């Protein structure tokens, strides 16, 4: 399955609200595989949303394994049609995004989250995530709503130049 190019601003798909995945067919399974393949191929990438690889569907992958700020860790997973059921405890931290080169920004995200979605196997999965995994999940779900971290920065002071694009 192919590693897809990661799209960057001002690619319009990044600013559109993505459509729900209607059924888990071959196309949806291929999308799940492409998300994983592209995420694995990108160094330091902990999450990827379908719009970032040009697909306007509600799907994302996350893997925070080994990250020093991670507390909960569900390994590598893909969710379709994710819904946030509970969110609390906003925490501010600095984020960057593969789709927004050159900039980083301070963004407040819930520190604890309960999220529900469908796995590629068609099972409903409810995940309780916190700390860095919660941040990653919220960042990816934002992509499905056409939102980038720039839409969430805490103030004009909170946007910084990224020195090195990895």
């Amino acid at each position, binding site marked *: 399955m192919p590693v897809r190019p990661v799209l960057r601003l001002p690619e319009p798909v990044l600013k559109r609200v993505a459509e729900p995945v209607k059924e888990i067919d071959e196309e949806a399974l291929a999308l799940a595989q492409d998300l994983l393949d592209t995420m694995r191929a990108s160094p*330091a*990438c*902990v*999450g990827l949303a379908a719009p970032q690889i040009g697909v306007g569907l509600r799907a994302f992958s996350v893997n925070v394994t080994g*990250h020093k*700020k991670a507390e909960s860790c569900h390994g590598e997973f893909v969710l379709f049609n994710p819904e946030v059921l509970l969110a609390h405890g906003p925490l501010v*931290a*600095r*984020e*960057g*995004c*593969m789709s927004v080169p050159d900039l*980083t*920004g301070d963004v407040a995200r819930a520190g604890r989250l309960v999220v529900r979605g469908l796995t590629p196997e068609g099972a409903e999965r409810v995940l309780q995530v916190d700390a*860095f995994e919660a*941040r*990653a999940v919220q*960042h*990816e779900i934002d992509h499905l709503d056409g939102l980038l*971290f720039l839409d969430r920065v805490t103030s004009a*002071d909170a946007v*910084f*130049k*990224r*020195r*090195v694009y*990895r």
Partner: protein
Amino acid sequence: MAHFALTAVGKDRPGIVAAVTGVLVEHQCNLEDTSMSILRGHFAMMLVVAGPDVLNPAALEDAVVQSTGAYDLVVAVRRIDDDVPDSPEGDAWTVAVYGADRPGIVHQVTALLADAGVNVTDLTTRVIGDAARPVYAMVLEVTLPPGVAPDEVAARLDAEAASLGVECSLHPSEADIL
């Protein structure tokens, strides 16, 4: 295309940005990086713009002064290098310093950082609190080059802060790429 640095400062009121950038549009200048903020009631603009090679910086400065006369701005325009210098290598850290206001805080802290080979990439200072007991707050974004130990820099900052009678902390500000 040539590049120019423009600074303009004046008492804050609505319309300053529109007035200055209007002149830039008339001179076919494109805004590249800018930073603008209010400093003690004065609106301070710093802009790097790209403009035509034939554009004379002194003429642009005159045009800005003429067109924004009502705002009484102090304006300066200079030609700058077209090449963007490489950003320094290393990890991003944030230094926060705060305490009773006294002369020399910025100088002492930044002299120490320079001596340690640490590059300042962003610096903001504010005087906060009430007039009777003003508190000076400074936040610096810095780059620690490879080989410079954060613990050592933190220890030197602590010692300096103690001698200045202020509080100081150093914490990592590397972004997570999601």
